[in-house]
Each structure stands twice: as structure tokens, then as C-alpha cells.
């Protein structure tokens, strides 16, 4: 096998860039004596002609219909994948929940008295929280006599909203503009 590396003529022969008259003259001169470059030029011309003759190959009739069918199949496949993923997720969560409930059930079966006392303690705690909250609300109502509890809640919410708005506006106005017109 011969190596076709006669530079720069080999590059010029295969280049699409136009050659200067001087380069063209040198190339012609070289081609008169160099058989390898002549062979390379001839081979490339043949390949180029072959490419031109080949043209574009078209697919068989009904390509669009087959593509549409494939798209439908792909869509179904995707939907099935999503459905399976959701099923797996739900099954996983259900299994976890089942294990947790089983754990609670085993614990409560082993010592039912402690479970009952725990729930009684929680109920007493909730009742005492509720009493404390009612006492706090009574004090607040005493401080602002003209408003009901709901009115006070709205007022507090409104004042909080104004504070946030003020803060956001301040930040917006104090920061440098990003877009200069």
C-alpha cells in the first residue's frame, strides 16, 4: 500500500479552497512528474463522481404511517412506564406504612396499659394547651377593646404584609439596576 503524502500538493488536490494561479502552476508542474499524485487525483475524482451519481436514497412507501404507529407505541410504552413507576411508589409507601402499623400494633399488644396512659396524658396536655391559648387571647382582646379576635388577627396580618412590602420595595430600590437602557 502506498502512502499519498506529497505535501502541499496532496492537500491542494483534495482541497475545496480555490488555488492561486501560482499554486495552480506549481500543482500542474508537480502532477506532470509525480505518478502518485496523479493516481490520487484520479482516485478522488472517481470517488467524487460516484458521490454525485449516488443521489439520495428514499425510504420505502408508508414511512410516515409507520412513524405515526411508532409514535403511538412509544407513547403507550411511556404511559405504561409512568403507571408502573406510580404503582411501585405507592406499593413502597404502603409497605412502609404497613410495617409501621405492625410495629405499633405489636408494641400496643405487648403493653396496652402504657398505651392507654399515653393517650390520656396527650388528651390532658391538649386540654391544658387550649386553656392557655384561651387565656392569652382574652388578654389580647382586653388590650384592643374595639376589635374581635378575628379582627385582631386580620390587623396583625395586614401590618405584617405592609412590613414585608416595605422591606421588598426598599431592597428593590436600593439595589443597582441590571439592565441599562
Amino acid at each position, binding site marked *: 500500500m502506498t502512502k499519498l503524502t506529497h505535501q502541499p500538493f496532496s492537500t491542494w488536490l483534495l482541497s475545496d479552497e480555490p488555488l492561486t494561479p501560482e499554486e495552480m502552476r506549481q500543482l500542474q508542474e508537480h502532477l506532470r512528474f509525480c505518478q502518485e499524485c496523479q493516481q490520487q487525483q484520479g482516485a*478522488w475524482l*472517481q470517488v467524487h463522481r*460516484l*458521490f454525485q451519481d*449516488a443521489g439520495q*436514497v428514499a425510504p420505502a412507501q408508508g414511512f410516515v404511517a409507520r412513524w405515526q404507529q411508532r*409514535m403511538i407505541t412509544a407513547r403507550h410504552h411511556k404511559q405504561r412506564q409512568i403507571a408502573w413507576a406510580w404503582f411501585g411508589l405507592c406499593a413502597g409507601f404502603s409497605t412502609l406504612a404497613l410495617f409501621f402499623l405492625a410495629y405499633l400494633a405489636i408494641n400496643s399488644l405487648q403493653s396496652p396499659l402504657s398505651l392507654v396512659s399515653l393517650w390520656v396524658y396527650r388528651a390532658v396536655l391538649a386540654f391544658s394547651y387550649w386553656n392557655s391559648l384561651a387565656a392569652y387571647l382574652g388578654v389580647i382582646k382586653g388590650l384592643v377593646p374595639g376589635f374581635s379576635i378575628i379582627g385582631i388577627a386580620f390587623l396583625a396580618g395586614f401590618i405584617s404584609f405592609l412590613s414585608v412590602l416595605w422591606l421588598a420595595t426598599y431592597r428593590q430600590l436600593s439595589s443597582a439596576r441590571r439592565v441599562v437602557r
Partner: protein
Amino acid sequence: MITPEPQWITQAKKGNSEAFSRLVEIYQTPVYNLCYRMLGDPYEAEDAAQEAFLRAYHAMRQYDERRSFTTWLLSIAAHYCIDQIRRRRLQLFSLDEAEYLEPPDAAPGPEQSYSINEVQRKVQALLNHLSPQDRAAVVMYYWYDFSYDEIAGALSLTVSAVKSRLHRARLALAQEWTDRETQAQAAERKQNDKAHSPAF
């Protein structure tokens, strides 16, 4: 190169499959031809072209309308084919064996409507000797008249890399042609010698 109606592209971007089907209709030949030139097999080309259209359909929202749709679509097809060739190589499948396979029988299927003639066979035999990216560059340059910039954009290469790949590919093609000619001449000479040798 073909220019599709802009409203079809706009509609397809909104997920209208009917509009995209029209684009498939327009571009089926260029995309199939690229896949065929890249893979050298009608079955694989059909599969790759369909997959390229499917990928384009799913990526349609990301398509920037300032770019050429043809370049974008053929870029998807070329990248897919390059991946396929690499995967095929991993599976130790020989392209050299594939190039001499006869076209499939007249069984019902997409390959039925055309036959691989001598020119196509020669072209494929030559193209199969190039690396996947060089092959893609050559196909885009000689079958689609893409500029260096367009090829660079489609194959994620620099313009100088495209020029260098094309030059390397031309050199390899010319060399391959010369080798084949030499082999053919040698075979012919051998046959002639056999024919003229005295029989004992």
C-alpha cells in the same frame, strides 16, 4: 434544501402531532438518506430515521426557530447514528462483513421498494471505511451541501475540525479507491493467467 412552512414548525413546537407528521413527510428522504449513508443497512436506516424523528418530536420545544430546522433535524439523526455505530462496535459486529451482504429478499417490509445497486454498494463500501464523525461530515457536505459552519453546528465541532476531518476523509477515500482498483486489477490478472495457462 427544503424549507418547511413555518406554521407547521410552530404548531409542532406546541405538541401538534399532525403538524409534525407533515414535517416527517417533507424530511423523510433526507433523514433516511443520512441514516442509510451512516449505517449502510436499509433496516437499520429505517429504524434510525424513525427514532431520530421521535427524538426530534420530543425535543421540539427546545428547537430554536432562529436555527435551520434541517440542520437541527439532521444533527439529531447524525448523533443517533454515531451512537449506533459505536454501540455496534462494542458488540463486535464487523462492518466489513455487512458491506458484502446481499440486499434482503422480497419479504414484506420497508426495504422492498428499492434495491441496492452497484453505485450505492460502492458508496457504502467506501463510506464504511471512515470513522462515524468523518462519515457524517462527508455525507452532510456532499449530499446536503452543508457549509463548514453548518456541519460544525450539527456535529458539535469547530470549523477547523470539520475542515480537517473532511480532508482526512477525502484522503482515506482516495486511498481506499486506489487500493480497491489495485486489488481488482490483480484479481483480473490472476483470472486471465488462469484462463491462458495450459491445462494438464
